């Protein structure tokens, strides 16, 4: 009796949406002590499931992760312990562990992967990439694209500036299909490359297909949609350009933007051998932003709609067939990165003010900012969605860390409910510790693939792969 007085009990209803961990019907409603925390509940569920190897679980009440004891939760929300609490349990995110780092000669600005689940692979439908043959594409400030296999070996490198490659730093690179790569950089071009991998062990070949001219300043972000063979690029010249990835569709390049016109540019061109690549222009240039455009993406469900973020604090929705801005959502900070969360119909935007805002881009939404995720100590310049978790997000920031977020993981502070990061991934090059203002270890690009894990690139000239332990079939 006395123990009961010390630990009052309450009835909880356990449920889950994941089929492999469903509890038998009779076990779903049980009495538990209210002083239990996540760990206690997790071991309880593991006991009920009869798991030999315990799986860590997280518990959701009303879509919010339980981060305190049940007792505290009840007190905080003024719920009687007599009521039955509905607890949804999900497999907890596992703290990512550093798997590998691929060293580069210069800063790495962007990464992309080719795996069975990557969009480029899904679009191509050309068989399937054999597991273990995933490729990692990295774009570097030295103007070279590199394709790596997961054994940290370079399978291919793009030609240097003299051989018809990017004249200066590459800022963004993406797989269009397993055999095509798009890249853009501070030389104001977007380039499409052919990537051919021989069946035998001979090195793969990367050759330039099309040069896309039209931007007047550095092209900082690209987005590709292979099925409609469209490519979007965001540039510091305040425009977003829509391109065709097919040579036949694309119009000719505007004469003025070609480097030949410049005397000094011509001089520089003479240094290297002139390699004849087709030069093409944009289908349309979307001009509405008043500051450098930092990021652009296709809407996850509709390739005719695009979102772009800019330093002018705005998120714009574009209708691509008519090339018109449909809607503008204004925030109070410069926006530097963009990712869509399709399940919540939100887009996440990283800001220069060290946080991530979740913006509802729909015109009907009354609140511009649905939620704020706080934790970074410097500008958030890259965002990636969690392929396994519809609420998950990974962000790369200039503070030298990648953070993993779950929209359901929140805390309440003076501004109301703000998102709280689940894990923070530091740079392995400095031992994972954080450094003031991310000096020397800024993260420029992050990508989350279900097969490979979290791939991030940064100022420390490395591509770093992190992954929750044992959750996937990656081998070293």
């Amino acid at each position, binding site marked *: 009796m006395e123990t009961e007085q010390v630990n009052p009990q309450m009835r909880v209803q356990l449920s889950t949406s994941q089929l492999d961990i469903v509890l038998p019907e009779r076990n779903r409603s049980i009495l538990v002590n209210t002083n239990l925390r996540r760990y206690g509940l997790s071991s309880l569920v593991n006991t009920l499931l009869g798991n030999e190897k315990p799986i860590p679980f997280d518990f959701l009440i009303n879509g919010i992760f339980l981060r305190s004891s049940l007792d505290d939760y009840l007190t905080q929300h003024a719920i009687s312990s007599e009521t039955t609490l509905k607890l949804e349990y999900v497999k907890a995110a596992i703290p990512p562990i550093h798997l590998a780092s691929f060293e580069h000669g210069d800063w790495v600005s962007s990464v992309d992967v080719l795996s069975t689940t990557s969009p480029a692979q899904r679009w191509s439908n050309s068989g399937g990439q054999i597991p273990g043959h995933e490729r990692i594409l990295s774009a570097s400030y030295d103007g070279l694209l590199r394709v790596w296999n997961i054994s940290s070996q370079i399978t291919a490198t793009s030609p240097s500036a003299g051989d018809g490659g990017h004249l200066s730093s590459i800022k963004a690179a993406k797989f269009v299909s397993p055999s095509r790569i798009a890249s853009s950089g501070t030389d104001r071009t977007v380039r499409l490359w052919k990537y051919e991998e021989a069946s035998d062990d001979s090195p793969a070949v990367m050759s330039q297909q099309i040069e896309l001219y039209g931007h007047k300043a550095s092209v900082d972000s690209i987005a590709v949609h292979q099925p409609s063979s469209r490519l979007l690029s965001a540039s510091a010249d305040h425009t977003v350009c829509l391109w065709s990835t097919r040579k036949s569709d694309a119009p000719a390049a505007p004469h003025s933007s070609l480097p030949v016109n*410049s005397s*000094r540019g011509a001089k520089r061109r003479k240094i290297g051998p002139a390699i004849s690549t087709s030069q093409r222009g944009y289908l349309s240039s979307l001009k509405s932003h008043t500051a450098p455009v930092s990021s652009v993406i296709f809407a996850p469900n509709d390739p005719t709609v695009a979102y772009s973020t800019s330093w002018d604090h705005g998120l714009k929705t574009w209708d691509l067939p008519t090339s018109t801005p449909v809607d503008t959502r204004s925030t*109070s900070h410069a926006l*530097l990165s963009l990712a869509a969360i399709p399940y919540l119909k939100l887009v996440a935007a990283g800001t*220069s003010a060290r946080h991530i805002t979740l913006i509802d881009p729909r015109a009907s939404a009354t609140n511009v900012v649905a939620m704020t995720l706080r934790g970074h100590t410097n500008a958030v310049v890259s965002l990636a969605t969690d392929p396994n978790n519809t609420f998950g997000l990974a962000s790369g920031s*200039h503070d030298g860390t990648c953070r993993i977020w779950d929209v359901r993981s929140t805390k309440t502070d003076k501004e109301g409910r703000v998102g709280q990061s689940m894990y923070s991934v530091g740079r392995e090059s400095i031992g994972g510790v954080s450094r003031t*203002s991310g000096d020397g270890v800024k993260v420029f690009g992050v990508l989350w693939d279900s097969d490979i894990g979290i791939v991030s690139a940064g100022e420390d000239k490395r591509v770093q792969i992190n992954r929750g332990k044992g959750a996937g079939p990656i081998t070293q």
Partner: protein
Amino acid sequence: MAPQDATKKRKAITRDSSAADEIVLSDGGGDLEAVFLEGSVSQSEDDGSRLSISHVFAFDEEESDDLDESEESEEQFGTDEVPSDPEQEKVNGTGLNGSAGSISKLAWADEDSEQPPNHIVTEDANGNPRYIYQDIDPIYASDDSEAPETTNTIGNIPLSFYDSYPHIGYDINGKKIARPAKGEALDALLDSIDIPKGWTGLTDPNTGKPLELSEQELNLLKRIQMNEVGEEGYDPYPATIEYFTSKTESMPLSAAPEPKRRFVPSKHEAKRVMKIVKAIREGRILPYKPPQEDDEEDLSVQHYDIWANEAPRPDHAMNVPAPKVPPPGYDESYHPPPEYLPDKKEKTAWEEADDDDRQKEYLPTDHSSLRKVPGYDKFTKEKFERCLDLYLAPRIRRSKLNIDPESLLPKLPSPDELRPFPTTCATIFRGHGGRVRSLAVDPSGIWLASGGDDGTIRVWELLTGRQLWHVKISSEDAINVVRWRPGTDAVILSAAVGEDLYFVIPPIISPELESRSNTLLDEGFGYASSKPRSDSTAKIPAVQWSRPTSTRLADAGVLLKTRLRSTIKVISWHRRGNYLTTVSPSGQTSSVMIHTLSKHLTQQPFRHLKGLPQSAQFHPTKPIFFVATQRTIRTYDLSKQELLKIVQPGARWISSFDVHPLGDNLIVGSYDKRLLWHDLDLSVRPYKTLRYHKKAIRQVKFHTGGLPLFADASDDGSLQIFHGRVVGDLMENATIVPVKVLKGHGVMGSLGVLDVDWHPREPWCVSAGADGTCRLWT
């Protein structure tokens, strides 16, 4: 019957005494008869004469006690001669008329028996004798001279001896001769003669009758005589009957219908009620709370009885009279009632208690009589304590100013409300060898240019800190200043290295933009060659604009160069991007130069300039030029070519200044650690002086992109960010709030932060440090 009559008679006489007196005074005829009757009736007014008369009557009574006739005659006489007494007449008429008449005749007959009878005796119808009396001759016509003359017997003495007496002498009979009547008595007599009212003595000519005036007419005449209005009852000064009352009633009665506003709820009252409700909601008005009784007294507070020996004093503000002491109670009596006496327990408790703990200062004690009350035992002690009070207590009220100094400071808004402003270091730009002397963010906000002691100009990607391009201009001279040309139509970077001014087009821009920038730089070559300057060649050798000699520089994008005569320390562009000014403090007359880019022209605006120029700047909107010397800032109107104003910040050595984008305010940084805000409309003296740095301030800069921010860079290695809101309204002063100190730069050789610049749109600032780094703060 007889005694009854006697009393009656006496009564009548006594009544007559006054009447007789009147007769004496009024009727001469009566008087004379009385004199006849008595023989000697003095005409005196005194009692004696009257008494004598009464005595005469009394004698008559006694004499004729049984003689009714004589009494009757006397009565008759009285009645005849004094008809004024009607009662008596009546009595005579009723009772005794017949006999009385005969008797009196008899009496008369008795007295005047010697005189011939004046009647004829006849016989009446009955045969009885009938006396027919003749008319009596009253002898009025006879002279009174025959009356016996009274002779004064006083002899030959002057009459003046009797002046003090009522009489003038004595007659032969020894009676007093009365003083003859004087005028007053005659007047009185005349007055008594009745003149009919309204008698005028005139005859009415119409009727021939004597004119008599009626009472009314007489009154009329009387009033006319008195100068009055003839009409009777006329009031020349009637009481004012007011048409409207002069009294002002405080609450007049009114028959006006009730106005509508009495029934409509008052908006004004609703407003006031809402005001109160709002105040209650906001907590400005608190509900009444009964004051808490301080049960436990604060021991730290000491109390003094300032009225211990209070003397009555004249009423004065500084004199607070002592409160009234309650009247003494029963227990203070020397002989209190037994219920007020303490019992043994109370007594011991009182005695054992400390002096301060005792509830009463005294113990009620019973003395059977007052003389048994002993002397006051605490007298000496009390006097001693009073003396202590006197010399220990301050006698002067010191008015101490009890104001919290914090409360005097103006309420500044909290920095949290003034966001956004830079708070943390976002990027560190590493690469310069040696100090970074100057830096600038390009007008588009993407790049950062910096120049330093290593002689290189570097252009960085602002956000990532990636160095995009660099050129080494000089190996010995430091880059003193780099500034971008304003405007996004071209990208031109100007840099000052020693005495040289370079114009650079960094090769990081699109070909289109590059060609446009090239055109801008090269325009002037044609102008310079076609139109040689004749005016300036006279005195000053023309400043040559040329391409840099080294092809390495030309290839790197350094396209234009001009050489002045002294080291350039400051470059400042005009907002249109065609003019720029350079300041070389050591250049004396040629220290401030204005260059025209499109003409490759260098002008020297000032022949003589007082003081050592430190900095110069164009007004953001007007053709006004600011030149800062060590102590002052002069403003010149460029179109009129005249001095407008001399701003005196009061600093010993101005290091830099910046003009607010709206043009009315100025911030000045000085080497003596001060940052001064000037309102140009207000005064030439600083509006506010901010002294927050420990060392000299090197650079001050306003945010130009619409945010109310400004920053200063100091040698103590820190930057300070201020919120400086300028309101267009002239009545309101600028709000200046320090919001952030940015620390991070290292101090190298007593130099800290050398330059600061703002991003053109965002609340980001960049700083150049002597530690060889630039930092971006967001």
